[in-house]
């Protein structure tokens, strides 16, 4: 999705400066899990707005459907039945999808110049025309979000509706959410709103209610209000303290010198050829040799 080009703060595998003539406000989407009723209107809005249609699947004995993120499903609801307190059942329903990390592991891991960009508003966007389908973004992502399409071998994920946001609209899922469980605005406002929600939850007996804005990835532009912020894993395995895998740092260490020394394009192309058709997990020795 290359709708925006004037306000990019970083690009994958690129050392030249990014175009940043325009500065945009840092935005965030706040998902209040305590308000979400799991209606999947957001899933359907995402399909509608982005013109995506996943396959009609099957039921695996759970409510979750489609069962996982895919090139056609950029967000899915994850349903978890838990008993945090003995005898008090809770049905925690979390909208899963890209977190739009301030420090995006996908972008850092991506070897293809400009396939992943981050705008100055914080949105991390995939520019599929530059994607080589290597799948490094998946390895780099601490939230297991990007998916490679079987059809075109490109990586896809939630764009935070960068096309809508660029023209001053809220993301499609936000607009659709009937309960107001998803809200969108400046990151600052979203944090303020979250604090109000957390106060309400504490008053209702959720002593550990809190905001999920993990600092291990520099904070995120998709945040959650959680009833049990002390145990994010309850929410279908939301990582407690996500970090970019050390593997990514390793690759970066090599890529940078490659770029800056301006080694022959032939060498670069050869490398990319390998990773495009090669295994998604890059063997360590391969990396050191390149």
């Amino acid at each position, binding site marked *: 999705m290359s709708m925006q080009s004037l306000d990019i703060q970083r690009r994958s595998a690129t050392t030249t400066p990014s175009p940043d003539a325009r500065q945009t406000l840092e935005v965030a989407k706040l998902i209040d899990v305590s308000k979400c009723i799991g209606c*999947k209107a957001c*899933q359907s809005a995402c399909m509608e707005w982005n013109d995506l249609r996943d396959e009609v699947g099957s*039921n695996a*004995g759970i409510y979750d459907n489609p069962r996982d993120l895919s090139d056609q499903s950029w967000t899915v609801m994850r349903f978890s039945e838990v*008993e945090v307190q003995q005898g008090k059942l809770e*049905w925690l329903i979390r909208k899963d999808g890209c977190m739009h990390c301030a420090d995006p592991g996908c972008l850092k891991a991506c070897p293809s110049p400009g396939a992943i960009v981050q705008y100055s508003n914080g949105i991390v966007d995939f520019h599929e025309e530059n994607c080589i389908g290597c799948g490094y973004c998946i390895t780099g992502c601490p939230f297991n979000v990007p998916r490679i399409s079987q059809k075109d071998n490109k990586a896809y994920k939630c764009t935070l509706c960068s096309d809508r946001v660029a023209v001053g609209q809220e993301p499609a899922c936000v607009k659709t959410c009937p*309960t*107001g469980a998803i809200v969108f605005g400046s990151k600052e406002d979203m944090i303020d709103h979250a604090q109000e929600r957390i106060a309400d939850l504490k008053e209702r007996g959720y002593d550990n209610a809190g905001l999920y804005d993990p600092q291990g990835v520099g904070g995120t532009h998709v945040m959650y209000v959680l009833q049990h912020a002390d145990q994010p894993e309850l929410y279908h395995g939301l990582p407690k303290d996500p970090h970019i895998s050390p593997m990514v740092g390793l690759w970066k260490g090599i890529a940078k010198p490659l770029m800056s020394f301006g080694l022959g394009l032939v060498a670069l192309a050869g490398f990319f050829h390998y990773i495009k058709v090669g295994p998604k997990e890059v063997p360590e020795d391969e990396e050191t040799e390149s």
Partner: protein
Amino acid sequence: MTNHWVDIKNADLILIMGGNAAEAHPCGFKWVTEAKAQRKARLVVVDPRFTRSASVADYYAPIRAGSDIAFLGGVINYLLTHDKIQHEYVKAYTDATFVVREDYTFENGMFSGYNEAKRSYDKATWMYELDKDGYAISDPALQNPRCVFNLMKRHYARYTPEVVSNITGTPRDQFLKVCETIATCSAPNKVMTIMYALGWTQHSVGSQIIRTGAMLQLLLGNIGMAGGGMNALRGHSNIQGLTDLGLLSNLLPGYMTLPGEKETDFQTYLDKRALKPLRPGQMSYWQNYPKFHVSLMKAWFGDAATRENNFCFDWLPKLDKVHDVLQVFEDMNQGKMNGYFCQGFNPLASFPNKAKVGGALAKLKYLVIIDPLVTETSTFWENHGEFNDVDPAKIQTEVFRLPSTCFAEEDGSLVNSGRWLQWHYKGAEPPGEARGDNEIMAGLFTKLKELYKKEGGAFPDPILNLTWGYKIPHAPAAEELAREFNGKALADLTDAKDPAKVLVKAGEQLASFAQLRDDGSTACGCWIFSGSWTDKGNQMARRDSSDPSGLGNTLNWAWAWPVNRRVLYNRASLDPAGKPWDPQRKLIGWDGAKWGGTDVPDFKPDVPPGDPMNPFIMNPEGVARLFAIDKMAEGPFPEHYEPFETPIDTNPMHPGVISNPAARVFKGDMEAFGKAKEFPYVATTYRLTEHFHYWTKHARINAVLQPEQFIEIGEELAQAKGIKAGDKVKVRSNRGYIKAVAVVTKRIRALEVAGKKVHTVGVPIHWGFQGLAKNGFLTNTLTPVVGDANTQTPEFKAFLVDIEKV
């Protein structure tokens, strides 16, 4: 709804029971979220399953499907024994003080007047004692043991927490916790709303469950209050409009009723409905019935309806009995019908005992389907393997399919649950040969009329004389119909006090039903819609969302019946002296000369506070009924009766009377009921957010979101039956079986009922053998044919099944 969707935000406590608003009404549910976020409201959910609504509730209590009256009766008992009622309200605005006839009795589960052969009651004894003037006798001191309050107290004293827990399976402490929470709303400034839907209506005692909820709300003083009321969440976007326009077999538009076969005299017909006040000084608004009725007949038959011919009263069908859908399919099954028109209706999927419905359709000569989609009913004759195992060669029914538009392809109004008529505009042209329903019906009508004209026929008069002044006779516009429902003057209407003054000129649209006359000078197609299209134009199309009071009564947004009133009975939000029970919820007020406010007052505009006239102006007694007098089929006080298929084979309240003694059961259907010995589990059917009835399985996105048929069971039952999540299972009732994927969940738990462990099998309804989702079984293969004794709404929420892994 007595109130409306937006008003839910004014509640302090929201009880969702007999419904699952988050699941089935996600958009309206936003007002629950709003009440929680802005007012710190608490949400309590009581349901056999821990639902999507429960997932955001402050408190959840389980209940056995079909035992709601026991639960609510227990709450009533709790309120009465703990003195947690709004005394002043109950005394002033209900029939609590009225004395009931001496010969009224309730013994061993039966009320006085039962006729076993007819399975119905003679309701004469279910009445107040009247004085010589015909007024109900009242005992304001509540000393008389036969006053409604004391009878009610006695009736519900039997519903102790132990008895309730034993019947409902709700653990005693959880039941009491719900009671305590509800009891807080007896304070005049604390208000509870009740949101319910088919989870209450689809029982053989459905209407009585709703009444029990209403009684509860009256005891708490919550009817007429902003944030209170009894709020039925209607399932289809225009099902409210359907009932308003009288599309039930015994109704006329605006909740008027068709005459019975013995009611051949016009005046007697009117007198019986134009009820005289039962207490001094009451409005008894139905006294205006003749005006509504005559205006309807003028709208229908125009000049042909005259005083001399009783405004064509003789042309109205006279009912021998109620011809509801269950009755119609019974008749069809007995071969008594030749043809059937099925408009926007999929009975093979929507009505109980699919085998019976399919068999009945096969006996027709012809079946006409008017629908935008390929419904299962339209292809009932096709073999779809196990899903519809019929032999087409043996079915001779000729099926005509007339493709119609869907709502987005037509102009018109929809009436929402809150009684708002909202105008909408066509968003797209219909595909192919599809035509609007108006056009299809009008096309048929004009053809039939020609035939009657040419050939005469047995009784051509009503057809030949039906008013049909539409610009394009075979395609009346929505605007034309809407104007007709609103009504117009047929002659100059003059002021009663000053005959020289013309109020409405002949031909002009009426401003409201207050202008209707019973002399034939007004025409009105649906009196409660009068005011929706006045000389000021289409009121339903108004889109001003300003809300000066902040209570959400946006009087300039669309139009609500009656007379744009948003909260019914709002006079009851003030005490008799006119002081609001809660100043923060002030809806209306007296300005010294008339009533006014941020809602349209539900009262006679010029009757001052302190007058004996009471707020429930539609009732001849002027107050709300805790004792339903003769209005309900099975008794004036709701009583717990077991579903016709009960898992416990008895009724712990009275083992001699197990199920609703006044429910109609056809021969053959009784035999088709299953017994707990063979079918030990309680099944309940319901809807999922991802789908709308049997429609959205035709839409790709919905099919993606919930692709395949499943059922839900608790972990304990799953373990006992060796069923794991994702396994294919067979669910069997005495009428048939379905196969589906098992969802095994903590959200359904086994309940202890009458010393027995009762398991629940949840059966979502949305699949069938047409559409884009994976083909599945119509769940009404399983359900029993018995309806609520008053409305004949089928008992889809509680029946018996067995389950096994396949």
